[in-house]
């Protein structure tokens, strides 16, 4: 056992300082396409490459609906007019401002994760929140096995038909106030799957969503950002520390 202790101490602290300090280590986030202007109105090649309709045109400006983007890179690779890419991960958006946790409770929140048909990537990123690199416990977030003690229901996946009942039951089993967090493009709008005969078009179909985290999958930092927002540990404003700006809607 002692060898494990030594190993642990030797490893030192690897944990990110986010949200106090900005985190820009390469590979922590896939990033998103940037909003571009100055594209000729008749040049519709780039936006037509987007399989999810995340790019929308407003005269000569190409807007990004970040909740639809699945990082397929089709708008930036293999095209004449690649869209510039921007790093960052602070994509989360609060849908219901009343759900933000009051100040006295924001440093202890319990999360029940429900996999409503995700592909495994979102869930892996959620699992990584416990990773020494991210260590969400330091911010007072804990994953709990029972919704009975959960403050936040974190849902990933497009809500497969068979998961509807379990998801609703988990929601019902939560104590009020219940907060629902939809994680990943699938949970936001069905992603590449929904709506279909056995998939919905996201969590909002059946539950009131309080906060949305775009991304396919959203990297751990993006989920952490969302958690900090709903916990009131961060304000829903351009973050001075990280210098990143939240996506337009």
């Amino acid at each position: 056992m002692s060898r494990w202790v030594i190993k642990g101490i030797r490893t030192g602290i690897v944990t990110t300082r986010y949200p106090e300090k900005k985190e820009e280590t390469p590979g922590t986030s896939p990033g998103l396409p940037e909003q571009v202007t100055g594209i000729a109105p008749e040049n519709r090649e780039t936006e037509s490459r987007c399989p999810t309709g995340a790019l929308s045109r407003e005269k000569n400006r190409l807007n990004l609906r970040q909740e639809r983007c699945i990082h397929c890179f089709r708008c930036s690779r293999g095209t004449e007019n690649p869209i510039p890419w921007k790093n960052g991960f602070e994509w989360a958006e609060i849908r219901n401002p009343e759900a933000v946790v009051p100040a006295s409770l924001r440093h202890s929140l319990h999360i029940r994760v429900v996999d409503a048909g995700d592909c495994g990537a979102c869930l892996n990123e959620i699992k990584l929140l416990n990773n020494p690199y991210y260590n969400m416990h330091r911010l007072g977030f804990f994953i709990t096995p029972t919704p009975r003690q959960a403050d936040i229901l974190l849902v990933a996946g497009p809500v497969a038909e068979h998961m509807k009942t379990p998801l609703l039951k988990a929601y019902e089993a939560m104590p009020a106030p219940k907060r629902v967090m939809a994680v990943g493009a699938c949970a936001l709008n069905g992603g590449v799957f929904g709506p279909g005969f056995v998939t919905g078009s996201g969590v909002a179909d059946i539950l009131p969503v309080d906060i949305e985290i775009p991304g396919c999958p959203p990297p751990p930092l993006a989920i952490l950002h969302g958690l900090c927002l709903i916990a009131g540990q961060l304000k829903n404003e351009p973050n001075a520390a990280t210098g990143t700006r939240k996506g337009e809607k």
Partner: protein
Amino acid sequence: MPGIETLLIGTLSLYTAGIAAAFLLPKEKTPVLPALFGGTGSLLLLFTGIKSFLPPETFHAALWTVPGIGTLTVSIDTLSAFFLVVTAIAAIPASVFAATRLKQTRWQHPEVAAALYLGLLISLTIVIIASHVFLFLIAWESMSIIIYLLISSDNNERPGYLMLSIGEAGTLAITAAFLLLSANTGSLSFAIIKTGAASLGPGVQWAVFLLVFFGFSVKGGLIPLNFWMPGAYTAAPAAFIPLIAGATLNMALYGIIRVTGSLLPIPHAGPGIIMLIVGSATALIGILYATIEDDFKTLLAHSSIENAGIIIAALGAGSVFLAKGHLAAASIAFAAALYHLLNHSVFKTLLFMGAGAVEDKTGTRSLDRMGGLLKHMPWTGLFVLIGALSIAAMPPFNGFVSEWLTLQALLRSVELSSPGIKLAFVAAGVGLTLTAGLAVTCFVRAFAMGFLGMSRSDSASAAKETGKPALLSMAGLAVFCLALGILPTYVIPALNKTIRPLTGASATTALVPGFFRPQGKLPEAFVNDFHKLGAQIGKNSMPGRGLAVLHRGGTKNPVVFAMSTFYMFITLIILLGLTAGLVRLFAGRRRKIRQPRWDGGVRKLLPEMTYTATGFAHPVRVIFESILRPKVVERKDTIAEHFRVTIRQKRNEIHLIDRMVLNPLDSAAHRIARTLAKMHNGRINTYAGYALLALIVFLAIASII
């Protein structure tokens, strides 16, 4: 109040009138007789007992003289009085309950059943008050036979035969013991035996003790003679089992106390040690089998064995203390034993009523097939819960007091000097502590699996509340459970009247010391001892009473274990009230939401997805595998090697006693029979040869002598 004699005659004539009425009245009327005559008779019996307590004089009456045997006498000393009270406390509600059952179940001959029941009451009374060997044995024997008849009225005859045959062996041993006593003292009267017994030689004393202990153990359910009990108790009709379990078990204990405590107190520690070890082993084995049992009634039968074990262990401890001259400690141990005996009668009668009501309403005794009964039978559930909490020794109920006292009494063994005896006490203490722990598991399981959760069978989900009279009799006993639990300081002085003649010391001074009372008066030296420790005895004591057990390791370091269930109860009430009040205060006007259990999101939680009683007890099974020695038979059926169709598993647990005592005896008997059968080959020459052989052997012996 009328005199004891009047009361006693009243009691017995009511019982007898009931029997007469059973045969005179039409069949439809007879089921109420137990309640009518048994109940009122038992009420008179209660008064008889109480009255005999009041002036501590012995009621004595000569009945009639039988030529060659002497004058048959009855007498009520405080020991008898105590047992009369216990019997009456169990018999009053049991009679009402018996009437309700007799009415509901279809009996071929309800009048016979009612008459037998009343006959049982008579024989119980006479066993207690008989003070003549002949009368005692007659009453004892008729009690056995009536129980046999009551049990065998079912179509399953084996348990009854088993009980009767082993019971007869017991009666034989008891008879032999009494004959030995009377042969040595020259009389069949208890009074004369008692005065003459002290002069008996140690050999005779030992022989009498062993015979008596063996004889009464059979009825008392001590190992290794209790193998008949689970079967018989399970087979017994629900109408009578509360009385059988609540009152007749006590008769065995009465017998043991009467002989070893009153008639022939043996002045050395040996018998006490035997009782201590046998008692604690019985308790442990009893509760172990109760914990894994699925049949509710069989479970209760195993638990009766356990409780008999506890009582015998306490009695054993008491007689060791007595033999060693530690009179106060002996009084505590006897108080513990008698208290537990009383408690056991109360809660076991209650639990058997509950089991009967449940069986009646669900048609099953299997805990695996119950579940969720609290919704359907809330009152029965409440009373069974109180019974279960009491028997599991949970404060503030009565079981707690007596088990606490028993363990405390065992702890006083530090005062003894012999290391061997101390070792026995430690072993017994460990056994009884484990027993207490398992008892909690056992009855948490019994109640939870029966009354909580989801109904695991259709009959359980269709159950209805049982009738009012049955509920009323359970309620009465439940009240007793609580009262005996929170008012031990009033019960022990009463018990003391029985104990003092046995030990020659008072349990009250040892157990209910004055310093729990405001104007306590304690010996100066005693108080000083405690003041050295920093204890403020006698100064800031609170009003009210509690129990204390004092351990004087030496004069310098006295240790006191004190406990007040009354305060515990008050505190509990206050805490509960406070919590309820706070909840009301802060959340009273909030909306309350009741939500179903969290089941992991399954579409529908089905009853088969919840723990069964067998599953709940499985860890205990695994831990005690070396004692239980299960034979697991498993068969896996598949189609085409890989499609699993069924896995059948059966676990056969042959009871330890059956495995180690009964079955070897059984096979030995068979072997002997076979050998004998070989000798009986039917040829005349062989028989002639045997005769010759016998003659030679006889002559040889004669010539040697």
